[in-house]
């Protein structure tokens, strides 16, 4: 459906205008974000990429209402981030799985469902469905420490999906994993996105990951954190890892790398 419509016609999910965020620290103000404009539409897969300190995680946290902006405007689903959060409009996947060690995998996935007050049968159904979605069927009764890092992160994705949000916010979810596991999870994530037609905002510092996953890549600069480039990817939505060898892929990757390099030279000057 969305493929035919094209990104321009889709509904705006996140609308950011002139957003800035300044942290007051003992060493004076730190400009984490400065004058950020961004429009994210329904069904897009948007990656934030940039060197550490560029504010990509902070921007994601502002969208999630985990940080309050100090200037500018932002709406999520047409309302303030706080209202969106209270309405449980998004699922958030953190850098580490943040699974609760005293809960089994199934009970970890059940956590948001318990908070939402869903019935036991509804919880059971959603746990089974979402664990299957991330290929963790059969691991319901294991504790987090009995699983590998990749499996733990998949469980945390299942937990985010169980809320059934239209918007998925992911903060370097595969950053701590080795490249083989990361490739595998990237492919799974892409399939999942194609299957569910969610809007995904994905923070990463890996160029191949950003280009492989995204329909839109946002390159950020540090100090103050701001947007340098927004790259619309014209790669087909149903991709496999082989696409990384194609000229189109390499062209986009090159443009991202150029952007990041410009950010660095700006740093040095």
């Amino acid at each position, binding site marked *: 459906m969305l493929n035919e419509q094209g990104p321009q016609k889709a509904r705006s999910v996140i609308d950011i205008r002139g957003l800035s965020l300044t942290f007051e620290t003992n060493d004076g103000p730190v400009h984490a974000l400065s004058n950020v404009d961004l429009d994210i539409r329904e069904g897009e897969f948007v990656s934030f990429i940039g060197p550490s300190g560029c504010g990509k995680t902070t921007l994601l946290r502002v969208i*999630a*209402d*985990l940080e309050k902006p100090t200037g500018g405007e932002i709406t999520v689903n047409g309302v303030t981030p706080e209202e969106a*959060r*209270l*309405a*449980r409009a*998004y*699922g*958030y996947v*953190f*850098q*580490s799985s*943040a699974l*609760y*060690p*005293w*809960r*089994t995998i199934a009970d970890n996935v059940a*956590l*948001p469902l*318990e*908070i*939402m007050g869903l019935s036991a049968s509804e919880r059971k159904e959603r746990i089974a469905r979402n664990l299957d979605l991330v290929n963790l069927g059969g691991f319901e009764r294991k*504790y987090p*420490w009995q699983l590998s890092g990749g499996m733990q992160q998949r469980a945390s994705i299942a937990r985010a999906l169980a*809320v059934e949000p239209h918007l998925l916010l992911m903060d370097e979810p595969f950053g701590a994993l080795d490249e083989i596991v990361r490739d595998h999870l990237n492919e799974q994530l892409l399939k999942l996105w194609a299957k569910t037609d969610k809007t995904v905002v994905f923070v990463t510092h890996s160029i191949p990951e950003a280009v492989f996953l995204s329909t839109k890549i946002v390159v950020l600069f540090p100090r103050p954190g701001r947007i340098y480039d927004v790259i619309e990817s014209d790669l087909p939505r149903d991709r496999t890892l082989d696409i990384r060898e194609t000229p189109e892929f390499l062209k986009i990757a090159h443009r991202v790398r150029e952007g990041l390099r410009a950010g660095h030279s700006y740093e040095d000057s």
Partner: protein
Amino acid sequence: MTDAAYSSPMGKVDSPFSRLMSGTTGPVIVVVAVIVAVWYIAAALLNAPAQRDAFQRAGQTDVTLAEFVVATYAQERPVLPAPHQVAAEIWATTAEKAITSKRSLIYHSGITLSSTLLGFVLGTALGIGLAILVVHSRVLDKSLMPWVISSQTIPILAIAPMIIVVLNAINVTGLWPKALISTYLSFFPVTVGMVKGLRSPEIIQLDLMKTYSASGFQTLLMLRLPSAMPYLFASMKVAVAASLVGAIVGELPTGAVAGLGARLLSGSYYGQTVQIWSALIVAAVLAASLVTIVSIAERVVLRRMGMAR
């Protein structure tokens, strides 16, 4: 070559002794033996002056060293009774007495134990409650914690009679005043431990609850309390021992009616050192048993929570 390796040129043969000492049983036995030996030596030395006087009064001058030492272990009111005297007294006042008898240590232990447990339960509940308040309110953290800490700087021996007297004045007697002294001592470690425990969740785990727009109560129930469990049990071990101390101290100013504290007090009135020491040993065994029970509960709970590996 391999044969030589097997026959162990260092002469390291697994003798029964080295096998015993490589486990925990051996060292435990050694420590107990050393303590008992030191105790016997100390008993002989401390009781010697009185024994010398006794022999002098009786006109006996031709006692051998062995006879003298044996005599120091058989005094009726020794400065330091020998271990076997204490053991015999404990046996006589537990196994050989009816539990209902006023001279039974089991009867007195039961009295002390009941106020210990009541005080421990109240103290733990109070400690958890205070910790929850302190963690959720900066104002209470600043205003309550100094009082919690200064409450423990007052010597319990000074405040225990006050509590008894005040409570007697409002007709609270018997079990409750003693239990409240136990509470006074035991809430503190639980408060401090639980404040730390309730604050132990990582920021990422708290952020997670925020993304679910969980209420403060849900965050407490589903995140803070489970995270605090290891801290709770660690502080409960301290608290249960403190409760027993509180109960015994609480029995001292009540006029030695019943309980281990009363046995200690009446023993000191009449110079019955053997009675004092047997009450002390029973109190120590009781405390060790209570701590062990909490440890077992800890292991069971943490294992069921999947937190013990």
